């Protein structure tokens, strides 16, 4: 209570002083009324000021009072120079906000531990080896039978958990007409118990739910999904939904904070791994494996044990490979098992954005340093102009610490306002960036809580920034020597050296930011202009599912029906979309030879697909309706080059490993298969009609209709087509509609993001560095105006003056730029994985930022030079 009132009093010191004065006044009047001499009554109090101080100190917190006085004084100082203060605050706010936003993203994706018991004991299993493209690669996918033997092998040291890649799947709660999508993960039944999770409602899955293939159709909902889809209805327990061929029963709802272990995806439904069709296949890689080490268990022995078990399993499996050379088999076995920390979960979003986010974080940190250097220079310049004031304060008895406090408080005001504005920016920017990463039908959902971690980071950053730019200025101000300062100022050059060093640092950082942003935008430019080989405009893709496997003949009927819809130009069928993520590969043998080490990729397509995609034919013909697979194949140019070494592949035979032989009937131009970043893959297109050993057509569950529309906006037809598919055959449903153009764009989401943010921050960095340079030049002209005046008076030409003013600073700019080149070249190897066909040593990549910085420096120097040569010697020399 008492401390509170003293703090309150400190914050309203004026009122307190008035009260004290008034009480004294009333006392004296009373005394006079009682007949005392007014002068004597006044004398009794002693010095009024001293009395007031004594009384004040009793009634308030003294240091708080001095802080308040400094704050008011600092605020007035800032308000006196509104424009510079606003510029300083804006640049700091922008960079603090960007840094905090970047931290929010990095924290949410990479650092924040999962809400499970002892997340620090969680590890993710992956294999490191040589990929099929001959480059080093890591694989985090596992086959379930391999998982089983590994789990048994380390039973005493660790518990292994299988968790499938989260997938958006079609499911229905009532009738098939109401099909909806949910993100489904197949998880080991014992996952919940191992992670120490408790149900919100009902029960969670256990090991008993995960024993026999397809016998335990039970599902657990995530709390998030329960809230969004069922509005937390407790009657959800016992409800059923159909997913694929199975009818699942909902048995429970998970704990509130747990959204799955795949950071960046919020899982809706958890089902037992045994319900996954791949649970019994030893060549079907479909889940991640997490390991939870028991307390006190060392990592390396567990890793070695798992490595040996996994290798033994693969060697056993490789015995079944026939017709492959020993080296090729060896290549697939040469993998090393890794155990990586997975306290923050394990997800594809993490691996694809880890480097990007860290790179962006470094960029914004550099921008923050540039802004700090600016403000530090500003404060130093101001401290110089306030040297006399400081000297006077010291002379009348102010302590050094009081001066440090005075300047630091001013810095703190700047930093706090900037920090507050930065918080608003961080609040908005992190979800904005996540929004940019989202493909429309599979939204990345990253929990971005603004809690003590983020708050703490923001506060620490603000404090750090304040000390960074405030402390040198404060110490400098407090070190003022009154005798020298009051006599006419100390050596102005000492101060300039420090400013120039900061300029060099600014230019270095600015160069790095510009250089990296240039690399990012060149990457985006090159990727987005890479020819796709097909024409994506006006092309609509309809992923379609049937209630059960349906004969290709029925699929053809639906395609035929769609061809009759007005506005449709052509329709074809394919197993899946190009660039849609589908992937099907095998080793192939040519003309009966043993299969080579290279993988070929496959896609089933109907007659007319090549024309609908507008991929040009080089040779041969399209499929005919009578063509079946095995039987005929169309290959792309890369396939022809790689497997036929320049001979015409027409009429030659290829054999997909383990299957029967096809004859090549056509050759088409290259088109990217699953990603536009990788080199073109050898692709064989095979007929949509697949026959089994007995010559019967094989039915299919899902496929994709490719529809080329007449109008330029294909999405205008989307709702009509969605309706027409079930009208053609009632058991067919459209699962998702996307334009091919959107799929192409989705390929460069990360590159667009990096280029956009990179360029934005490059612009900010350039602007800040330019302003900083301008400020320092202007200040040095002001400092040396007497010298310049004298030089002009004795006849120095304008060119000399311009050189005098700028030469030192431009030396610094040059030094900074050289350091920037070195730093940029050194840092490139950390972001190499983000670049596409861009070389760091490319002269253009180095020249562009150099020229930009040089131009900005020239522009920033102009006003100062103009001021310098316009100095009027007469007025100048008379003034002092």
């Amino acid at each position, binding site marked *: *209570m*008492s401390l509170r*009132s*003293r703090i309150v009093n400190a914050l309203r010191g004026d009122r307190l002083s008035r*009260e*004290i004065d*008034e*009480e*004294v006044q*009333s*006392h004296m*009047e*009373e*005394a006079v009324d*009682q007949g005392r001499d007014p002068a004597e009554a006044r004398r*009794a*109090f*002693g010095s009024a000021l001293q*009395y007031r101080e*004594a*009384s004040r100190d*009793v*009634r308030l917190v003294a240091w708080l009072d001095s802080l308040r006085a400094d704050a008011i004084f600092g605020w007035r100082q800032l308000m006196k120079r509104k424009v510079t203060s606003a510029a300083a605050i804006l640049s700091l706010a922008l960079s603090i906000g960007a840094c905090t936003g970047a931290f929010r993203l990095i924290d949410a994706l990479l650092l924040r531990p999962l809400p499970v018991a002892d997340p620090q004991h969680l590890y993710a299993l992956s294999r490191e080896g040589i990929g099929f493209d001959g480059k080093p690669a890591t694989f985090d996918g596992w086959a379930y039978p391999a998982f089983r033997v590994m789990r048994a092998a380390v039973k005493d040291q660790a518990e292994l958990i299988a968790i499938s890649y989260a997938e958006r799947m079609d499911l229905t709660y009532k009738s098939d007409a109401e099909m909806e999508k949910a993100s489904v993960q197949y998880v080991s039944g014992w996952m919940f118990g191992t992670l120490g999770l408790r149900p919100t409602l009902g029960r969670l899955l256990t090991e008993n739910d995960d024993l026999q293939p397809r016998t335990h159709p039970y599902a657990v909902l995530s709390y998030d999904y329960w809230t969004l889809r069922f509005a937390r209805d407790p009657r959800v327990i016992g409800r059923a939904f159909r997913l694929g061929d199975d009818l699942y029963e909902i048995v429970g709802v998970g704990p509130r904070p747990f959204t799955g272990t795949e950071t960046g995806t919020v899982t809706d439904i958890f089902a037992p791994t045994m319900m996954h069709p791949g649970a019994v296949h030893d060549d079907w890689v479909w889940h991640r494996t997490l390991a939870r080490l028991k307390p006190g268990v060392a990592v390396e022995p567990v890793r070695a044990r798992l490595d040996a078990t996994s290798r033994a399993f693969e060697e056993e499996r490789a015995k079944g490979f026939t017709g492959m050379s020993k080296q090729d088999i060896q290549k697939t076995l040469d993998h090393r098992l890794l155990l990586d920390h997975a306290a923050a979960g394990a997800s594809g979003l993490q691996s694809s954005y880890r480097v990007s986010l860290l790179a962006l974080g470094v960029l914004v940190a550099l921008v923050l340093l540039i802004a700090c250097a600016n403000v530090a220079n500003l404060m130093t310049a101001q401290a110089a102009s306030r040297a006399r004031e400081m000297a006077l304060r010291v002379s009348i008895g102010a302590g050094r610490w009081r001066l440090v406090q005075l300047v630091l408080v001013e810095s703190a005001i700047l930093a706090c306002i900037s920090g507050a504005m930065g918080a608003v920016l961080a609040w908005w920017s992190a979800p904005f960036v996540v929004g940019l990463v989202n493909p429309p039908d599979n939204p990345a959902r990253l929990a971005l809580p603004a809690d003590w971690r983020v708050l703490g980071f923001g506060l620490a950053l603000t404090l750090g920034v304040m000390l960074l730019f405030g402390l040198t200025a404060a110490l400098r101000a407090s070190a003022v020597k009154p005798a020298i300062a009051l006599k006419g100022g100390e050596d102005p050059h000492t101060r300039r050296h420090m400013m120039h060093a900061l300029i060099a640092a600014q230019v270095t950082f600015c160069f790095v930011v510009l250089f990296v942003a240039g690399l990012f935008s060149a990457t985006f430019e090159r990727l987005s202009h890479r020819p796709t080989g097909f024409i994506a405009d006006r092309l609509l893709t309809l992923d379609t599912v049937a209630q059960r496997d349906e004969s290709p003949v029925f699929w053809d009927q639906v395609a035929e029906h769609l061809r009759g819809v007005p506005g449709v130009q052509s329709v074809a069928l394919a197993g899946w979309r190009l660039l849609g993520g589908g992937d099907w590969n095998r080793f192939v043998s040519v003309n009966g030879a043993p299969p080579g080490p290279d993988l070929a990729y496959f896609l089933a397509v109907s007659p007319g697909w090549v024309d609908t995609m507008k991929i040009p034919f080089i040779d041969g013909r399209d499929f005919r309706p009578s063509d079946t697979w095995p039987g005929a194949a169309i290959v792309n140019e890369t396939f022809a080059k790689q497997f036929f070494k320049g001979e015409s592949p027409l009429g030659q035979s290829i054999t997909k490993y383990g299957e029967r032989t096809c004859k090549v009937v056509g050759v088409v131009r290259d088109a990217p298969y699953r990603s536009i970043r990788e080199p073109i893959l050898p692709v064989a297109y095979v007929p949509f009609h697949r026959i089994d050993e007995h010559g019967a057509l094989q039915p299919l569950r899902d496929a994709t209709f490719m529809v080329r529309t007449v109008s330029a906006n294909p999405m205008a037809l989307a709702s009509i087509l969605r309706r027409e598919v079930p009208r053609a055959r009632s058991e067919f449903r459209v699962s998702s509609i996307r334009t091919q153009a959107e799929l192409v764009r989705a390929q460069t989401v990360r590159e667009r993001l990096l280029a956009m943010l990179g360029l934005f921050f490059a612009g900010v960095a350039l602007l800040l560095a330019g302003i900083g340079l301008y400020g320092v030049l202007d200040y040095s002209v002001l400092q040396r105006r007497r010298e310049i005046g004298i030089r002009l008076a004795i006849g120095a030409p304008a060119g000399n003056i311009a050189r005098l003013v700028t030469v030192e600073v431009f030396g610094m700019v040059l030094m900074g730029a050289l350091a920037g080149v070195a730093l940029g070249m050194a840092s490139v190897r950390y972001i190499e994985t983000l670049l596409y066909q861009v070389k760091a040593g490319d002269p253009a990549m180095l020249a562009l930022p150099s020229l930009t910085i040089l131009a900005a420096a020239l522009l920033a120097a102009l006003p100062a030079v103009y001021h310098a040569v316009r100095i009027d010697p007469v007025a100048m020399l008379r003034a002092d």
Partner: protein
Amino acid sequence: MRKTDSLQGSLDLLVLKILSRRPHLHGYAIMTAIKDGSGDVLRAEEGSLYPALHRMEEAGWIRAEWIVKDTGRRARIYELTAAGKRQLDAEESRWQAVTSAVNRVLRTV
């Protein structure tokens, strides 16, 4: 709390005692009461009375409020709080202990 020397201690004691008998006094009245009550022997100086009053107010022993007197002047009057009453008891017994101890020393030496 700050250490109080014996003089300040007795000033606090006097002020608390006076306010316990006659609440709602202003500073000048307290000063007069000390002077009159001690038969002009003790005098509280303005320079020490008001800081003492403010200190005791901050300590929560007394509370103050502004009133408008019949003369139309504003005055700040003081009264004892519950904590002040406890403090008065403590100070009084301390004072008794000190004076009796001092008296004993004066008698025996």
